[in-house]
């Protein structure tokens, strides 16, 4: 049975409550990651996506289970939105053997290949051509799948972004390029280093695309836009470039306090918290605050249990340092 995008994009109370709960799980996972980092239990770095939840959850709700997703080093939300459990993500951050990548990837490389979440990439922009390749593969196989590349505003100034957009249009590939514009390229306002006001959408015309700027904090708007773009891509009409404006609740990475952001701007954006927006919409749909609170409480329990399980899990197995370089499972390079 087929539906038009508008039918499938319409969100009823039950679905919105479910999406709200997913966003709450991500929010609490990120808070847990932050606290575990401060406690010295997560080493290296983290790039938390608190504030970006609606982009991941809204887009994922618009996709088929077999579609492909490619994310960046700020990718915890995409992993969880595509089926990774908070427990296996937190375990990965904590260098545990139960980590989603056996503690060989870390925060910046969360991957859930079994559900089509094909990696978090820590070289800015590198995964846009890779996502185009997954779309090309879907086209070659006639599978009807689409590939989605999520990337930050900073990636719009790197060559791979432009190479990927060009070839995706020329080959009419089923790829959705979704920019999470959080207004800052690491510590620098994106506007101060970019030739156009909307770093992704304003580049669309150069590739014959219509650039859309949407409210990335509104899970309903994200789902609607992505569903429409995915339908077009599946119909053979080629790629889409969507710019979702959103905002980080934490700094760029680790313990960055983000003091380079004006307090007024921070306050304005915190008032546009994607979870609060979803709660308002739930209220409009007749869902009581008590029911939303219950969803939030379930999310808290899931994440608390995930943290406890990750803490109790065994550390990374030293022998895994020498597995999985090659497809035979090993790392032998000479006789």
């Amino acid at each position, binding site marked *: 049975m087929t539906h038009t995008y508008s039918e499938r994009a319409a969100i009823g109370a039950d679905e919105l409550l479910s999406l709200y709960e997913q966003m709450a799980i991500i929010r609490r996972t990120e808070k847990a990651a932050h606290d575990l980092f401060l406690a010295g239990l997560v080493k290296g770095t983290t790039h938390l996506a608190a504030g970006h939840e609606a982009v991941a959850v809204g887009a994922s709700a618009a996709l088929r289970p077999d579609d*492909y997703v*490619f994310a960046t080093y700020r990718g915890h939300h995409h992993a969880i939105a595509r089926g990774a459990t908070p427990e296996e993500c937190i375990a990965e951050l904590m260098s545990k053997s139960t*980590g*989603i*990548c*056996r*503690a*060989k*990837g870390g925060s910046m*490389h969360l*991957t*859930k*290949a*079994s559900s089509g979440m*094909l*990696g978090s*990439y820590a*070289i800015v922009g*590198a*995964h*846009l*051509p*890779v*996502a*185009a*390749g*997954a*779309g*090309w*593969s*879907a086209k*070659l*196989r006639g599978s009807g799948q689409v*590939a989605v590349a999520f990337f930050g505003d900073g990636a719009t100034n790197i*060559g*791979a972004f432009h*190479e*990927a957009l*060009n*070839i995706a249009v*020329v*080959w009419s590939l089923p790829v959705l390029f979704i920019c999470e514009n959080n207004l800052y390229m690491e510590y620098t306002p994106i506007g101060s280093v970019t030739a156009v006001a909307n770093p992704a959408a304003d580049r669309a015309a150069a590739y014959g695309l219509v650039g859309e700027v949407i409210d990335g904090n509104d899970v309903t708007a994200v789902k609607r836009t992505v569903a429409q773009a995915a339908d077009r891509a599946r119909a053979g009409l080629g790629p889409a470039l969507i710019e979702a404006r959103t905002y980080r609740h934490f700094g760029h990475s680790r313990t960055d306090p983000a003091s380079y952001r004006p307090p007024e701007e921070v306050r304005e954006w915190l008032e546009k918290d994607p979870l609060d927006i979803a709660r308002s919409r739930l209220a409009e749909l007749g869902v009581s605050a008590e029911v939303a609170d219950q969803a939030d409480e379930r999310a808290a329990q899931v994440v608390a249990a995930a943290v406890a399980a990750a803490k109790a899990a065994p550390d990374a197995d030293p022998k*895994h340092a020498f*597995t*999985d*370089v*090659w*497809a035979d*499972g090993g*790392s*032998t*390079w*000479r*006789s």
Partner: protein
Amino acid sequence: MTEQISYREAVAEGIARELRRDQNVVCLGEDIGAAGGVFKTTQGLFGEFGPSRIWDTPISEQAILGLAMGAAMTGMRPVAEIMFSDFFAVCWDYLANEMPKMRYMTGGQVTVPVVVRTANGGGLGFGAQHSQAVENWTLTIPGLKIVAPSNPADVIGLMASAIRSDDPVVFFEHKGLFASKGETAPEGYVVPLGEAAVARPGTDITVVGLATTVPMALSAAERLSGDGISAEVIDLRCLVPLDMATVLASVQRTSRLLIVEENPYQGGWGGTVASIVADEGFEMLDAPIRRIAAASVPLPFADALEQQVIPTVDSVTDAIRKLCDY
């Protein structure tokens, strides 16, 4: 007599056999379609397999390798061409950071069965940005398999293994060998990755070469045979997996080792071979290990200058003679 085929024809033949065998094999690169490739190494593929299997790309090397990688991760077996190996520098991220690391850093979740073909090396007077031998660049990256055949039959047999490999493979085709001819390979011919060949048996010295330095070493060995010097020539065929068992077994017999590389001495692959023999074969040796490699200068344009910089039959002959006299 077996049919003769050129090295360049062998490239197209090797790819064509895999395209016929496996519908998931697909090619992409600049000018590889109707144009048949700038070196004519994909001649005939577009005619036989059409635009659904042979894809012309823009001059977008990052896109070429990214597309190939994404397709490889999702069920295809792409064969990507980077026209000149020097251009690896503009898509190095995919060779250094993406393809070789995905399986490892995802804990084995992702497979990247991709082949990156490229025209490598000097001898054709293309100057410093189109003539380098850069196989040593790739040798620094754990997670890449590296192939560099020296003759047409090996091109076909190694291409089969490379395309069937579930690991990323960099396939160096030597520009200086494209016009050379040799016996073709029978249908179904497969040369496993990581098996060196004894190209010429000998007893006095082991000469290890790769790609174009193999015929160079064979010519030198032929010259010296009249002087009573019996040189064994080993064609490594692959740098990863590196067949050190064959090299060490040969050195055990000959007690002398000369390594001939076209990449620069500074950081060249021969340093790895030499260090392993020094570590594990020290007591087999009756003379120091010697390396002949390109000088550590950019490749000059004029033939007279280029010959000063990269190994030649003369320089190899001289080195063999000196090492045997040691």
